[in-house]
């Protein structure tokens, strides 16, 4: 009798648990981040996701054709790393079937696919996290993210630097043993990490008047091209625009890490033009930069930067005598040129005007084929909101770029694959173990995402103990 009662009670519990109404939907599941149809590298960390709607239970079956894993959670799924790697190891594509239970109704959505690329991605992404916009900041830091483990590491936080601003981290072809970033404010400088040596460089000279700003490493790692800018700020009265930054003047200089010389060139210091956002080509023999004629525009909305280039001789550190306009932007402003390391493409941000596209909703990524000269808007990557900073992986098969597409206020890093033909896959948000809570809870923007090929070697202690140094100005004729 007692057994019967227990069996009856258990049956009741089981029945109660399985009474959720079931439905099927031919729509894609409402999940965050949106991973439907994306291409991911074979060495990416688990693509955990959450329901984008109020959910009581989320279940997912992920299959590669020969094996599958089932995961479930209350509001999202947390995919075990080992099983995920096994699944990816021999997969060309994954099929993901998701069921979301909400208000007692379980809906099975149409499965979606994730393409798995054999092109592995670099170790991680280095970025700055900072409060969005504006002239003031509080806590900020430079961090790097292990893309295979979903783990964030701190490079430096400004709490250790007297609340100074840290910015413009840059690496020689994603190599973290040749890297730099700026520390602004009292006791600041440019932290140069070169083959195990750390130096805090004062890059301000009497002749240049200001410290170096936007960097680009020469692919061989000897030179760094910088812009030097006198930067100002203004505000919009239309809320979605918030603010604009513009230059009073700007030039391009090149720092030689072997001699410690900061080279200035008359051709890159033209007082009649602004030169900014330098970027070396893959072979290191061309220096791209953006240039505008301030005289032609009385108002900021009329300032247009065009993409220019000048020859560069790595042996002597000399630049060519002639500036070539690669693309005038066709009535828009071209910014952040970044050449792929295989020498095939150049990616730029194109916006209606100005030098600071990160608050321009119209800012989009464009691709220039350096072999054919063709250029196109990268519609696969662009959204209705801002796409701005971007960088290439060391294999030139992946790009990471910042976009405001999620909430319009905070930039987030998106990653996309590029194939032999220059076609980009649908971008995906940089994975996180608990993506919804992390990205929705984070009040900071991701700034300047840069691929790195290995973990960064220096610690905050190394940074604080870096030896002070100064550049030596060399005015080239």
């Amino acid at each position, binding site marked *: 009798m007692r057994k019967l009662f227990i069996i009856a009670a258990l049956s009741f519990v089981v029945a109660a648990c399985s009474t959720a109404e079931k439905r099927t939907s031919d729509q894609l599941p409402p999940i965050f981040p949106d991973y439907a149809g994306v291409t991911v590298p074979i060495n990416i960390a688990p693509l955990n996701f959450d329901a984008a709607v109020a959910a009581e239970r989320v279940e997912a079956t992920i299959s590669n054709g020969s094996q599958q894993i089932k995961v479930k959670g209350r509001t999202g799924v947390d995919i075990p790393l080992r099983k995920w790697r096994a699944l990816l190891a021999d997969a060309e594509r994954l099929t993901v079937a998701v069921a979301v239970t909400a208000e007692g109704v379980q809906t099975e959505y149409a499965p979606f696919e994730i393409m798995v690329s054999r092109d592995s991605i670099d170790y991680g992404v280095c970025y700055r996290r900072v409060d969005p916009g504006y002239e003031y900041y509080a806590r900020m830091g430079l961090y790097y993210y292990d893309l295979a483990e979903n783990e964030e590491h701190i490079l430096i936080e400004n709490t250790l630097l007297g609340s100074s601003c840290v910015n413009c981290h840059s690496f020689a072809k994603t190599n973290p043993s040749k890297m730099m970033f700026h520390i602004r404010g009292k006791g600041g400088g440019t932290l140069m990490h070169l083959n195990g040596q750390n130096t805090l460089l004062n890059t301000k000279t009497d002749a240049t008047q200001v410290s170096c700003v936007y960097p680009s490493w020469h692919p061989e790692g000897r030179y760094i091209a910088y812009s030097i800018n006198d930067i100002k700020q203004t*505000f919009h009265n239309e809320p979605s625009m918030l603010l604009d930054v513009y230059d009073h003047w700007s030039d391009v200089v090149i720092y030689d890490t072997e001699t410690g010389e900061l080279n200035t060139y008359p051709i890159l210091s033209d007082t009649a033009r602004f030169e900014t956002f330098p970027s070396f080509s893959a072979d290191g023999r061309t220096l791209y930069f953006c240039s505008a004629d301030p005289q032609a525009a009385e108002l900021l909305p009329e300032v247009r930067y065009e993409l220019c280039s000048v020859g560069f001789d790595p042996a002597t550190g000399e630049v060519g005598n002639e500036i070539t306009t690669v693309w005038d932007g066709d009535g828009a402003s071209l910014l952040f040129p970044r050449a792929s390391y295989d020498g095939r493409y150049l990616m730029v941000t194109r916006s209606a005007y100005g030098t600071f596209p990160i608050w321009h909703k119209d800012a989009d990524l464009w691709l220039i084929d350096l072999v054919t000269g063709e250029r196109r808007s990268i519609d696969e990557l662009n959204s209705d909101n801002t796409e701005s900073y971007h960088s290439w992986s060391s294999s030139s098969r992946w790009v990471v770029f910042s976009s405001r597409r999620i909430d319009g206020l905070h930039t987030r890093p998106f990653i996309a694959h590029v194939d032999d033909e220059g076609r980009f896959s649908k971008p995906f948000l940089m994975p996180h173990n608990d993506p919804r809570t992390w990205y929705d809870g984070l009040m900071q923007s991701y700034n300047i995402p840069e691929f790195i090929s290995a973990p960064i070697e220096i610690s905050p202690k190394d940074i604080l103990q870096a030896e002070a140094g100064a550049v030596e100005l060399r005015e080239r004729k």
Partner: protein
Amino acid sequence: MKASTTKWRFWQVAIVVVAMATCWCWFAFGAPYTLYTKEQLVLFVADWTAVLDYFARPAVLSSIVGDYLTQFYLLICGGATILTIVVALLWWGVRSALRRFDVPSQNATVWALLPVVAEVALNCHVEYPLAMTLGAVAATWSFVAWARMGDGVCKWLLAMILAVGLYWAVGAHAMMFVVLSVAWLCRQRRWGWALTLMLLAVVAEMVVGRMLYLPASQAYCYPLIENYMFQHCQLFLLTEAAVVVALIGIGIRRAWIGVLAVVMASIAGVAAIFDDTMEYWLGMSCEYYFNRKERILERADENWERKSYVATYYTNLVLAERGELGEYLTENYQPATYGLLLDVDESSGYCYAMAAADATAAIGDMAEAQRATLLAMTFSPHQRSSRVAKKMVEIAMTVGDKELAEKFLWQLERTALHREWAAKRRAELVSGAVPSDEVRANLVENDGFVGANNWYPALYALVEANGANRMAVDYLLSMHLLRKDRERFLDDYERYFYPRWGAQPPKVYQQALMMSFDDESELMAAIERYGISAEVQRDCIDYSRIYVSEGGRGEALQERFSRTYWFYCNYAQMN
């Protein structure tokens, strides 16, 4: 003997009950707005990943519990009740700790109130977090438990582990444990152990702080954040100092000396840390946030004495919302234009920035409101604030930025007391009922550039975008009046105010109009055109007569005319 003990026990209980009741009353009625503001500076998102964030800093446990409980400061007397319970636990802990030093219970009862007084005084500052007091409680009780242990090497090792572990768990007030333990060891004449423990604590706090990316100065006072309004973070050591004094005081036989010390310390501590003018303007800010705007007008008169920009700002804002700014502008203390719209820059601080968004949002300048709101978030000690998050939702919904509104709603829905508010806003967001046509009409659609805190272009953009935006027109005209720019006032009155609302000119505008014409025939024509009342005409004549007859002596006019625009123009500095 027994009767005497019973009597003394009664007095002990009475003293403690009175002390705790005083504490409760003080926070409930003396400093409620400081506590409300503390709640506004917390955004406790009940989600595992969000809670994991606390592990990036010391004081993990006290910060989690402290922030969780601080949410309930929002309830009426919630803060007072929570703080009273916490300091009662502190008193009990300190009393138990003092009893470990073999002193009579009556002495321990009274002297244990001294650290409580220090914590109460420190809690009068808007930036002193509950986590600090909770840390003091945990450290004290840890000492009590530790002191009860039997003697031996394990005990000393445990003291070392506790000194480090407590810092990780409760932050700066782990020093309470160190102070009590060192005193206890000294009493045992174990000088070596005492010195070792002290040194270890000092070094460990610096090392743990450094591991968690805090400079030494910040590590020693965390979770109190340095470089904000709490200028001297080391002041938290008042509590430890009070413990030391209590340890000395318990040796004094006369109990009344202890009572006197506690009373004097209470008065001195609260007087030193509590800022009643700040409490006043925080009150104005909170009442606006709670939508109890009539209370702002009720307390506006106090500002003639306190002279707070923020209090003036909220008074002006409520008057403008009621369409009465032009009527009562000079009835209230006006520090030129500083009380009209608040400038926000790096020195403003989060309370100021938080307030600044209220007026700009109300008049429709959503760009400036968003800027101030984001800066308030940036400037707040932990870059989180429930009030700022709610403001962001309102602004995002007004400008139609659904995704941004959802981001902050997601956070608010995971708080204890803002979830209902968030649910209502989400329902509005889904229904598309917000913004209303009236609000939408105020938004500036033609983009332009403005400097930060450059109010004229912003106000002109608003009145040009929507001529029916009465608040913006009132702010623009008031800006002219408070700058004593009657020429621009007259131009803009004619252009923006007169065509729509000219039939019923507010009193202060009438007074300003009377001052705007030197020529008598022009004045007579203006009186007729603008419908200036007989009362204002009569007062103007009287004002002029007295002014001339008294040779411009302001005192002669003060009693009758101190709240007129004429007096503001001539004698603003006398206010």
